């Protein structure tokens, strides 16, 4: 059941580089399951989390191909959008437009939208909880 409360998260790390990317998605998942709305502001390399062209690969060290089921973050984020719909809550994923432009990351999965730091500020002010996850 929707709580009517909202969490705003700011993320910065690109996929496949830092543990924080997965932890952030775990937090989003847990918040959605608890019936909260979530806004994600993807800044810097985090705009790459939703790129449509991400593709799984085989694992030559393990000798696996499709059975490796190598995850892509775009699939994880897509699953979070589905979870939000099932829970009757909103996931608003905002990719920072200038970060998208300089990285050529504009072709993303269905769901995210282009935005700016002002969207993050507006969402933070309207939220019950805010968490900035830094990079190092």
């Amino acid at each position: 059941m929707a709580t009517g409360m909202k969490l705003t998260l700011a993320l910065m790390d690109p996929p496949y580089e830092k543990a924080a990317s997965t932890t952030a998605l775990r937090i989003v998942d847990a918040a959605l399951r608890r019936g909260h709305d979530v806004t994600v502001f993807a800044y810097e390399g985090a705009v790459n989390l939703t790129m449509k062209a991400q593709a799984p690969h085989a694992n030559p060290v393990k000798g696996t191909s499709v059975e490796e089921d190598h995850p892509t973050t775009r699939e994880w984020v897509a699953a979070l959008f589905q979870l939000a719909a099932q829970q009757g809550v909103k996931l608003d994923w905002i990719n920072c437009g200038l970060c998208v432009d300089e990285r050529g990351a504009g072709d993303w999965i269905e769901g995210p939208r282009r935005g700016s730091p002002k969207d993050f500020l507006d969402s933070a002010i309207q939220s019950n909880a805010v968490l900035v996850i830094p990079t190092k």
Partner: protein
Amino acid sequence: MANYLFVESRDPYGAGDAQHVEELVRGVRQRGNTVTLFLVQNGVLSTRPGAKFSERYADLTRSGITVLADEFSLRERAIERLAEGVQKADIGQLVDLLFVAGTKAIWH
């Protein structure tokens, strides 16, 4: 007074600012604030009994700071038993802590 949630994602081995974080957490608590330290990712590495810096958690708890460690991060690192003062928690509890009214959540 205010409610603070410190999320520590870094281990204290090699990261020179771990000492600073402990001082900061204690300093915020000494001002009468409610403080929770939530360990996640490599931040849980020092919770293994006998690990360097593991002895700090009992003292932090005695000073009124709640110390929680993400159970997934612990399992991922094969940490089963925890140093005194550390409680296992799940990511949902982190979300619940974020939603305590007026919380200042600071990720390190």
